[in-house]
């Protein structure tokens, strides 16, 4: 799913197109976590997550996960015109590693093998034990947290959609979202808790909205147990003109939320106050 538009990727269709072209499908599944969808079961070959988000769940670590599903035939993928292999990095001798041919070493783990061995050896990209422990501990409660994230998100989306000062709510729960039907099919447990909405106001009103919130933390992270908010027009994208913002699909009043695990009534109360304050700031 795209951030923050929540455009749902039609994984089965895109996987088919990728495989017909002899390339693997790599899916960034950070915003879903495996609880909402398991991309490998829908045809993806590789998956990665920012473990900083839902997997660890508390915004306390920096880390990531790469998963090789073992389904892609790196050796068999050849250029139709020349017959030359497309992935020589894995299917030809690599002199940086004793002429190892990774696809021969492991029929289903070639990508993982090179990614891990070379990454560790050349770049020292080794996670600290404490970081790994925090991520593992987070994963232990992932299903409980995800269910709560989805429940809270549904209530917040319904609240926002009912507010006259809100121009648009971009969540696939709503029929107005372009991915509504696809989300129902691929994401029956929910379509994520990171989404955007537009208030009917200018940059200053957007800023006022953020400043009035008390429960939502003003942070660029997502997938945290605490609810987070950001106003792109006055923060991450403040240097862009109104026209450039519009071209990026962001209005002056676009707000991005990452819904956390708090009491949903408290979240709605916080949003209600901030919407009033922003409306008055016109």
């Amino acid at each position, binding site marked *: 799913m795209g951030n923050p538009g929540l455009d749902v990727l039609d994984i089965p269709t895109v996987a088919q197109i990728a495989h017909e072209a002899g390339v693997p499908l790599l899916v960034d599944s950070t915003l879903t976590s495996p609880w909402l969808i398991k991309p490998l079961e829908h045809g993806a070959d590789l998956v990665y997550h920012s473990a900083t988000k839902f997997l660890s769940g508390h915004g306390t670590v920096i880390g990531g996960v790469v998963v090789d599903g*073992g389904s892609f035939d790196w050796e068999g993928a050849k250029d139709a015109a020349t017959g030359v292999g497309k992935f020589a990095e894995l299917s030809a001798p690599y002199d940086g590693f004793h002429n190892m041919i990774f696809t021969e070493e*492991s029929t289903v783990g070639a990508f993982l093998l090179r990614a*891990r061995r070379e990454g560790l050896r050349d770049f020292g990209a080794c996670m600290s034990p404490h970081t790994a422990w925090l991520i593992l501990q987070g994963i232990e409660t992932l299903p409980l947290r995800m269910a709560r994230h989805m429940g809270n998100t549904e209530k917040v989306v319904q609240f926002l959609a009912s507010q006259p000062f809100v121009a648009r709510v971009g969540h696939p729960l709503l029929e107005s979202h372009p991915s509504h039907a696809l989300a129902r099919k691929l994401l029956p447990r929910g379509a994520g808790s990171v989404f955007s909405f537009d208030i009917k106001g200018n940059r200053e009103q957007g800023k006022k909205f953020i400043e009035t919130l008390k429960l939502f933390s003003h942070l660029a992270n997502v997938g945290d147990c605490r609810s987070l908010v950001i106003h792109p027009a006055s923060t991450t994208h403040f240097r862009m003109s109104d026209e450039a913002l519009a071209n990026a699909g962001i209005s002056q009043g676009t707000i991005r939320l990452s819904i956390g695990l708090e009491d949903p009534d408290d979240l709605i109360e916080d949003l209600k106050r901030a919407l009033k304050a922003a409306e008055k700031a016109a």
Partner: protein
Amino acid sequence: MNLTVNGATTYCYTGGKTYDPAKPTVVMIHGVLNDHSVWILQSRYLANHGWNVLAVDLPGHCRSGGEAPQTVEQAADFIAALLDAAGVARTALVGHSWGSLIALEAAARLKDRISHLVLVGTAYPMKVSQALLDASLNEPEKALKMINVFSRSTLAAPPSALGPGTWIYGASLALGRRVLTSNKTVNVFHRGFQACDRYANGEQAIAQISCPVLFLLGSQDQMTLPKAAQGLIVKARESGKQVQVLTLPVGHHQMTETPDETLFAIRDFLGR
């Protein structure tokens, strides 16, 4: 390395080394729905420590063409033809599961051409239940998941091949699917199981070998229970063979669940 055996392309993993007639040779034979890559740690180590390694993909499996063997005897004939094609006069044989029966039968036929015999996760008779045979034919995905659980001793495996971070259940499922789809004409899953189930020459074969034999078993093996190898072990001892039995605290897939211990056992035995 690709060889032509019985007119078909045959792939052997060599650890990236070219054949050196001055070195001893070891042939490694995989089991049902596996390929050479199940020996990843052991084969690469041996190839870098004084051995010519031929970790073969059996005919009709993954990189090797040809007709997938219907019986253990056919597969043993293939091993003999492989040695001829590779120009190997004498070799050690290491086989896992179905591959252990193939190694045993080949050792009986090739006698002095075999220097050592290692039977990993073996049993005799290697009977396969009718339910599993049927599932391998009609519901291979279901059967694959069944044997994947039966073959491993624990849900929380210690760091194992390919190394820390590898989920051996997932990797094994992926390999099984890959091997199954590599043969478009024959269900090699069912054919391999049938060959195990029908093999009836084990006791005669063990009496005919002329080399030392290592039984490398798994105490928690649910595919080939350690007690199911005892008859073969007794027969080997009765017929005066040099027999070593080693039982690792592991399931059926010793090479991936306890790669180091399996390597050390094979290395030490081959060094005798």
